[in-house]
């Protein structure tokens, strides 16, 4: 076996278990670039892009999105997260959205992965499976560094799950082009009114997706005063304070796509706008 086309998840988990060289390929939008440029040459590949089990979205109370769900699917079939829809629309191009999967984003674990701040802010759980069994990992524990995560070599990501968080959520991403950009900085904000919880997560602003705990607490305080369920705008001062707290949670660097100073600045702008935007949603 050099390239194996998996029929179902069990077939795939067995295939990666028996061949230590085996790597998984779903949409190919990350791995094929590495292969085309000669940076990676996996000894064996298991293609999981046609595993139907991985392609479902269910919304019975808890949302479960199969790892093989593409961004196009996320745009067409509402997974109950406006932020995830917005993030999906910002992914690459139609061609990339047709092939790229949410599981691929989770597996690659780039700090710039567009879906990842949303999963972090939703406090999603990543479900992985191997011949040894199934394991559930909170997103907060998933990423261990840039393009590093807690997946064992023989594990397959099967789904992401989260509690439906209501309509107050958004995603924003900075790039110097109107489409097809890798995030210079990104932000997801989720206000779960029924659980009185605020989730803020930052992309491309540190080695992993970062959470802004102090900003979350601050926003929760603002919403305690405004009323969680109401559609009322916080004051500009409150939004600005929230922005500053979000920016202070970042650990940005200068790189080819942007400066650390700009990343910090733009995070504060995005965060202030995001809070103003979601507060009036209902």
């Amino acid at each position: 076996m050099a390239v194996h086309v998996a029929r179902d998840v069990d077939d795939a988990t067995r295939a990666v278990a028996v061949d230590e060289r085996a790597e998984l390929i779903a949409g190919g939008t990350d791995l094929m670039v590495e292969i085309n440029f000669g940076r990676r040459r996996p000894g064996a590949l298991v293609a999981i892009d046609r595993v139907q089990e991985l392609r479902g979205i269910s919304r019975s109370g808890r949302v479960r999105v199969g790892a093989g769900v593409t961004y196009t699917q996320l745009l067409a079939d509402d997974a109950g997260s406006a932020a995830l829809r917005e993030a999906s629309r910002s992914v690459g191009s139609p061609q990339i959205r047709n092939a790229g999967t949410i599981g691929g984003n989770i597996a690659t674990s780039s700090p710039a992965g567009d879906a990842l701040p949303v999963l972090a802010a939703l406090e999603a759980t990543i479900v992985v499976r191997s011949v040894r069994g199934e394991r559930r990992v909170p997103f907060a524990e998933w990423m261990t560094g840039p393009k590093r995560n807690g997946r064992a070599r023989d594990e397959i990501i099967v789904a992401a799950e989260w509690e439906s968080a209501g309509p107050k959520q958004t995603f924003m991403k900075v790039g110097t082009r109107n489409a097809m950009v890798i995030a210079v900085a990104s932000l997801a904000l989720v206000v779960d009114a029924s659980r009185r919880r605020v989730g803020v997560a930052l992309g491309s602003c540190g080695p992993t997706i970062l959470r802004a705990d102090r900003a979350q607490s601050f926003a929760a305080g603002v919403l305690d005063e405004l009323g969680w369920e109401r559609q009322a705008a916080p004051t500009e001062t409150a939004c600005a304070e929230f922005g500053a707290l979000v920016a202070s949670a970042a650990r940005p660097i200068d790189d080819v796509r942007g400066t650390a100073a700009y990343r910090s600045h733009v995070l504060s702008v995005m965060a202030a706008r995001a809070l103003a935007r979601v507060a009036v949603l209902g």
Partner: protein
Amino acid sequence: MTLARTRVRGGVGESAPRPDGVPKVRGEFPYASDLYLEGMLFGHTLRSPHPHALIRAVDVTAAREISGVRVILTERDLPTRERFGLMKRDQPVLAEGRVRYAGEAIAIIAADEADQARAAAKAIVVEYEILPPMSDPIAALGPDAPALHEGGNVIDDVLVVHGDPDAQAEVVVQGEYEVAMQDQAALGPEAGLAIPTADGGVTLHIATQWLHEDLGQIAPALGLPNEQVRLVLAGVGGAFGAREDVTLQIHACLLALATKRPVRMSYGREESFYGHVHRHPARLFYEHGARRDGTLVYVRATIVLDGGAYASSTSAVVANAGCFAAGPYRVPNARVRSVGAYTTNPPAGAMRGFGAVQACFAYEAQMDKLAAALDMDPVVLRARNAVEDGDRIITSQPVEGSEPVANLLRRCAALPMPADEVAHPLRAGRPSRDPLLLPGGAGNLTHGEGIRRGTGFAAGFKNVCYSHGFDDVSHARVRLERTDSGIRARVHTAAAEVGQGIVTVCQQIVRTALEVEEVIVETPDTTIGSAGSSSASRQTWMTGGAVLAACREVRAALEERALARGRAMDELAALLDEPIERSVAWRHRPTEKRDGHTQNHGHVAFLFAAHRATVDVDLGTGLVKVVQVATSQDVGKAINPQAVVGQLEGGIAQGLGLAVMEEVLLRDGQVRNASFTDYLLPTILDMPPVVCDLVEHPHPDAPYGAKGVGEPPTISSTPAIVAAIRAATGRELNRVPVRPDDIVFGTVARSGWRIVPGSDPAMAARA
């Protein structure tokens, strides 16, 4: 006297379809990278990872053992010591003991499979002694800088002295400007197929802009007479200047000759960034002086262009930047110093706009600064000083055959503005407009928050055709013949069709001149004389001119034949029992060589355009959405209006790219973004609607008055967009591309050098 009984369709002035349009939409048009011969080998290049190093040893032993590898060549295996280069032969075919830029070719390999050739390149062991890079061109010009080439680091140094170079004025504005490195980024990467021939020579099918110039560099390097090297134009996937220089031509021929097998070389995108020259990065130091009524008194400028490791066309780019440094304005007094420096950065050469782009960004920023200092409307200030026929530019050459630039400015200003769609802030939390239309686009950053609209203007100009005494010639052969189905013409030239549509122009001219509808354009090759390059906006003027001249000779011969036989001119079937064929070599009138103060008639004619840009800027994120670009351009005569609009819109897209996103990022000579992931080209969501106003003011020397249209759209569109961003933000924005940091923090680009505008940059002091 007419030949055809019915009106011929598809002649001059009509939007005739391209002859290559149908094969292109079917995917059947053979581009260079599509060429395939049974048994061909795949060529590959090993390049230096270091910008500056001595090569101590190259060991190919392990690489030779890789299966499928047929040959590996290093500089020791070269048949000659000939160097190559567009205007100065200063580049070794393979590095000789020293590399001067990251990406310089060190060895070439031919193998049965592309993968094997790549693996062999990885297996070659090169021992380098790393030298410090010389990445600052101003430092490279200094008296203490180590010489990168024999003769020092000055590639060319042009002084323009006009009127009183030390003139004084009531109102003075100064500025330092920077233009970063832009990539032509033609969609089709470099490719060619070399086939050894029975006579010991080689035939090269190649995507290029200039077959004969390539031939002139290839044959000596191979140690072959020109007659044993034949070039045939393969399908060209865009050019924009990047295919003026030799890239893989000599390498592919060497591999084919060494293996006696056909060899195809085809760069990937990453290698393409290393393989071809880019637009010259520039530092520009300006001072403008004017009277209080806005009349320009003087311009003084020092322009430093980073030529990179090898000269390429730097000398002509330096001359252009100097000649056009004051813009399309009456400037009675000037001193301009334009210098090109060798550095250990990637070589710079031709890109659409060729020196005029860099200067225009600076002088148009200066004009806006002056308008602000004078409290004048920027369009009024420009129009007051704009040149018209009879006015002299700072080289003393008068403008002729042109629409007054003030008219272009006024017409452009009067073109319809974008429908008022300034975004409104949140309405019940939902975007009032799709964020795709706003700065940041799919990133969903604003639903109207932070948006400020701005409008800016710019005018620009440059030469058409080659300048400064160059023997600019194009050859054409036109044959009128009878076939079973009727009368047709065949036209053969060596003009490279790179997408611009010279094939259509040739057909249209033949149709109009000979009144025959069926015109076959033969594949360009080196069996006919040179057509010169598809560059400098010159092919319509030059090869169009040659074809028209050839048609006139054919027609005269036909008239003679008709007269001799006592037949009417429209009895073509009878008259063409023998075909009539005529070849011509066509030249524009001679231009003068450059003298010490560049006061001469160095150019054939000038091309002028004005641009107006409207932008929405998100003040919070520093992102820009260009909302509309409007342009009035003097095209002379639109031989094919649809194709002319295509040139204007496409050129503006490249100008937009330079204004807000395109930059080859360098650090100590290393390219940091050699991919389309990080070198961003405008997408269809970034490019706004363009309003085109084609002004037809014919030039008396050009065929049908048509001037060439390709470059002006890239020249003044960039400064117009940046002016619009300045209007929206109040920021200085003295470099392109404008970065989000420049907008949100007001970052100003500084070279770190103090240079008095007009002075010799070799005398620069650290600021």
